[in-house]
């Protein structure tokens, strides 16, 4: 009797010790994960915040489009964050506030008045003055790790009314009373399952669900169930209900977006409603809570009817539980599901720009930091301009579709602000929403005549030798290159144009005169100029380089033209402005950097010639669609057999580079003017840019010259026009013309080359 009892006690105690040991182990697991970093959070990428100030160029419709994308609710009075009321040209909105790199933007009620295409008034809702305000930036994507779990962490105090009550009512009514497991619920589940003969109801508490998702695999076994129960109890032992609830709200799986798993109510709210969680209304809360049971089955985008039914069932339960009144439920049931068309923050929306951001970030951060630390990346991406560029491309390709072979043409496009060096738009494909080969960054293609401004700039930097009205011979010639091959360039129209003004060689993109000028200057000097413009590729100094045999990406072309557009100051193009930590602490800035590479006078003359390209040269078709008051500068480019159709050009505030061509490098039916320029023009029509207006540099004078002879003239004379010259290189002023204007010299008549 005694030995047997002794052994039994000993064995029992050993079992207890083993169990205690297991409990100790589980306890360590529970605490280790719960008290440390609970989740890894992918970096979030934001668009530029829309700034509001009086005098800002912004149409009301663009503004409303941005507000819609940010999930602002149209209401009769803007009485809470994320609401806007519209009355004609007067808008009142309640912004949400946001932590930016340099400061926090407060959530505030703002009045905006539009007039034409401008913001004409801005004030706080109480009438006090407001100089400038920012909307919160649009989330345009994230950097996901391999397992692609995404979430937007929220705090318990950020949840909207009814969320906690609804969750408890639907998933775990005893939550605030039990100690991790609920015998009452288990008993009920056992009873239900036993009578049904299969598992139809779980007795899991919220704590157990959290433990399951957080620590355990999905396997269904009694051991796992027991472990789960033990861990739930341990979790409740160490942490209070609020902590557990907050963790649950952030952990729960609520949907699948392609490769990305949508976790937590914070992200689900953005993903389904494009709104912050705190702004959700009763019916939206009911929908999300209802989805916990089966996020795929009740997906409101795929299965709206099922989702609606489930939502309304949840509302009924809330009435039954006394959480809401019957009237509230009836009103909520009237509302539509209210989900946005597609995840507006889906990382597939703007793949080309995100690709640029990722490349830049990977130079500066480790992969884990990007996918786990919840960094906030602020970029210069402009969604309004991006959508305009995308529709310009689609519209133009549709118009060109009649030409045979256009269906095979691919596209790349870059838009920057020349005054800040920021990339605002990136298109990597004619189907800009599909990630894939990013032609804006990776298509290295011969630039054709896009190189010519570099030749003319090299010339204009030598004012003692060249002015805009220097004469060039546009005549056929042949030279023997270093490789022994004979090079005989030809004009696009296969004609020689005789003696032309220097600027005409550029404006009309004459190959013969341009190549000749380049040879005079020396190919290495032209390549040096190209390098100073920002081109980093090293090309051999062959004469064929003068006509654009060298290849660049659209992005590299943008950098090159940026220097011409920004008064001769080169700037490395930037897509990222700054980076904040998950807690909103400043981490890194990508500052604006400039370097003067050219004399402002030479750039002024070059811009003048490039404006003439648009007025009278190869780009003149733009003014059939744009007002003549809009000064623009640009250059067409076409490679051999029209394999590449380029246009690069700029206004005061927008620089755009368009490339069209085939991925297999086959010929297209498009020249720079008939292809890329059409997309460029379409974009500029939609974007409504500011006219180019470079201040007159100190060393530039405007002189009157005779349009036919290029000799100095006087404003009183017929045929006198103004031309800019570097001071000292202008022609001697002509005599004032009286009533008997001296007849132009016979020689000038004979030359008559202008025609």
């Amino acid at each position, binding site marked *: 009797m005694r030995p047997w009892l002794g052994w039994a006690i000993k064995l029992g105690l050993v079992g207890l010790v083993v169990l205690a040991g297991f409990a100790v182990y589980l306890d360590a697991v529970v605490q280790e994960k719960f008290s440390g970093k609970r989740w890894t959070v992918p970096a979030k990428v934001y668009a530029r915040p829309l700034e509001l100030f009086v005098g800002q160029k912004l149409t009301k419709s663009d503004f409303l489009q941005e507000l819609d994308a940010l999930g602002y609710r149209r209401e009769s009075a803007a009485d809470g964050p994320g609401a806007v009321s519209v009355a004609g040209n007067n808008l009142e909105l309640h912004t949400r506030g946001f932590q930016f790199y340099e400061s926090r933007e407060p959530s505030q009620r703002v009045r905006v008045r539009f007039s034409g295409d401008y913001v004409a008034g801005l004030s706080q809702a109480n009438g006090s003055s407001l100089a400038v305000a920012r909307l919160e930036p649009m989330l345009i994507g994230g950097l996901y790790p391999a397992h692609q779990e995404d979430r937007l962490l929220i705090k318990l105090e950020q949840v909207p009314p009814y969320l906690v009550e609804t969750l408890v009512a639907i998933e775990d009514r005893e939550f605030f009373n039990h100690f991790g497991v609920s015998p009452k619920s288990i008993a009920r589940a056992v009873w239900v399952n036993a009578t049904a003969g299969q598992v139809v109801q779980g007795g899991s508490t919220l704590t157990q669900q959290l433990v399951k998702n957080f620590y355990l695999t999905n396997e269904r076994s009694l051991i796992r169930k027991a472990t789960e129960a033990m861990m739930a109890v341990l979790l409740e032992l160490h942490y209070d209900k609020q*902590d557990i609830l907050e963790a649950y709200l952030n952990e729960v799986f609520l949907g699948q977006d392609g490769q990305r798993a949508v976790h937590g109510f914070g992200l689900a709210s953005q993903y389904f409603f494009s709104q912050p969680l705190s702004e959700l209304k009763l019916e939206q809360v009911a929908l999300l809570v209802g989805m916990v049971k089966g996020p795929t089955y009740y997906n409101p985008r795929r299965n709206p009817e099922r989702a609606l039914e489930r939502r309304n069932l949840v509302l009924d339960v809330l009435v039954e539980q006394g959480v809401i009144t019957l009237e509230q439920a009836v009103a909520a049931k009237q509302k539509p599901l209210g989900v946005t068309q597609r995840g507006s923050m889906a990382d597939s929306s703007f793949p080309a720009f995100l690709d640029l951001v990722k490349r830049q970030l990977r130079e500066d*951060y480790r992969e884990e930091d990007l996918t786990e630390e919840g960094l906030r990346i602020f970029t210069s991406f402009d969604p309004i301009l991006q959508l305009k560029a995308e529709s310009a491309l689609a519209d133009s390709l549709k118009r060109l579709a009649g030409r045979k072979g256009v269906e095979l043409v691919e596209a790349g496009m870059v838009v920057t602000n020349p*005054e800040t060096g920021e990339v605002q738009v990136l298109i990597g494909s004619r189907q800009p929403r599909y990630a894939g080969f990013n032609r804006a960054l990776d298509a290295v293609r011969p630039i054709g005549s896009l190189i010519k401004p570099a030749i003319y700039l090299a010339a204009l930097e030598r004012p003692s030798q060249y002015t805009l009205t220097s004469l060039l011979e546009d005549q056929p010639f042949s030279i023997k290159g270093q490789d022994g091959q004979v090079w005989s360039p030809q004009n696009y129209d296969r004609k020689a144009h005789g003696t032309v003004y220097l600027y005409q060689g550029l404006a009309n993109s004459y190959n013969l005169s341009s190549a000749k000028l380049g040879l005079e200057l020396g190919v290495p000097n032209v390549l040096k100029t190209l390098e100073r413009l920002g081109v980093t590729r090293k090309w051999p100094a062959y004469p064929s380089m003068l006509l654009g045999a060298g290849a660049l990406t659209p992005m590299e072309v943008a950098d090159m033209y940026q220097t011409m557009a920004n008064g001769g100051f080169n700037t490395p193009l930037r897509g990222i402005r700054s980076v904040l930590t*998950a807690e909103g602490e400043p981490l890194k800035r990508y500052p604006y950097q400039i370097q003067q590479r050219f004399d402002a006078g030479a750039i002024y003359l070059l811009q003048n010639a490039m404006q003439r390209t648009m007025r009278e040269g190869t780009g003149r078709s733009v003014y059939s669609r744009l007002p003549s008051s809009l000064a623009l500068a640009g250059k067409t480019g076409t490679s051999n057999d029209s394999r590449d159709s380029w246009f690069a050009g700029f206004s005061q505030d927008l620089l755009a580079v368009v490339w069209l061509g085939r991925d297999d490098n086959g010929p297209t039916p498009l020249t720079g003017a008939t292809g890329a320029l059409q997309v460029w023009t379409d974009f500029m029509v939609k974007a409504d840019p500011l006219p180019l207006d470079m201040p007159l540099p100190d060393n530039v004078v405007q002189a009157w010259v005779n349009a036919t002879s290029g000799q100095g003239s006087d404003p009183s004379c017929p045929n006198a026009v103004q031309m800019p010259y570097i001071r000292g290189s202008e022609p001697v002023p002509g005599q004032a013309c009286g009533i008997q204007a001296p007849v132009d010299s016979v020689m000038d008549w004979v030359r008559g080359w202008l025609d």
Partner: protein
Amino acid sequence: MIKWLIPALTASVVLGGCASVPRGSIPVVDSSSSVYGQQQAGAGDYGTSTAQPPQSQPQDSGVVVMVPGAGGSSAPIQTFPAPGSPIGGGVVGSEPFSTAPVISEPAGGGSSSVPPPSMPSGIPSSGGLAADEQLDGPVLALLTTAQQQQGSGDLNGAASSLERAQRIAPREPQVLYRLAEVRLAQGDAAQAEQFARRGLSYASGRPALQASLWNLIAQARERQGDSAGAAQARERAKVSL
């Protein structure tokens, strides 16, 4: 009998120890220090100069953007007379060099229905005010913020606010001047000089501002060890005034 007590006691002690972990607020995400380590590594981004006090502010320049009350009594407030023309009032001479009809190019947008601010920077023009007097609204507000940030030693924040102002008014030379000043305080003399030069290209007809920009260039060149260039810049500053 006593032997089996030892593990049991140990277990209970350990359990007790675990149970006594204080509950408390749990950090939502514990950012590992690796990111910060990266910041140190990427110090080319002025990261290292953040903590430095705004060293040797150009006290002598006298150029202070008109920020009411921002600098207290110590800040010299000076305005720069502007020419009658708007900022950067150069005329683009793009009349077609041919016998085609001359197209005049108003600075503002084209169609008559548009009420265009005549300046492209987004700064509303109001009547015949000089450019400096127009430094109100968003640009003034942001320059004020930047001044406060710089005053409290937050040079990165100041630079960031100034870049925000520069996006709103890219051709306002006073913004570029302040940007150059902050870059200099951050220890980036080369960029300070570049921004001052960019400012000069928009400061035509504003001799006082030109002189200050040249003085800033002189300081920046001195920092870069170019004393001859600095002397030249000082000469230009005198000529400008």
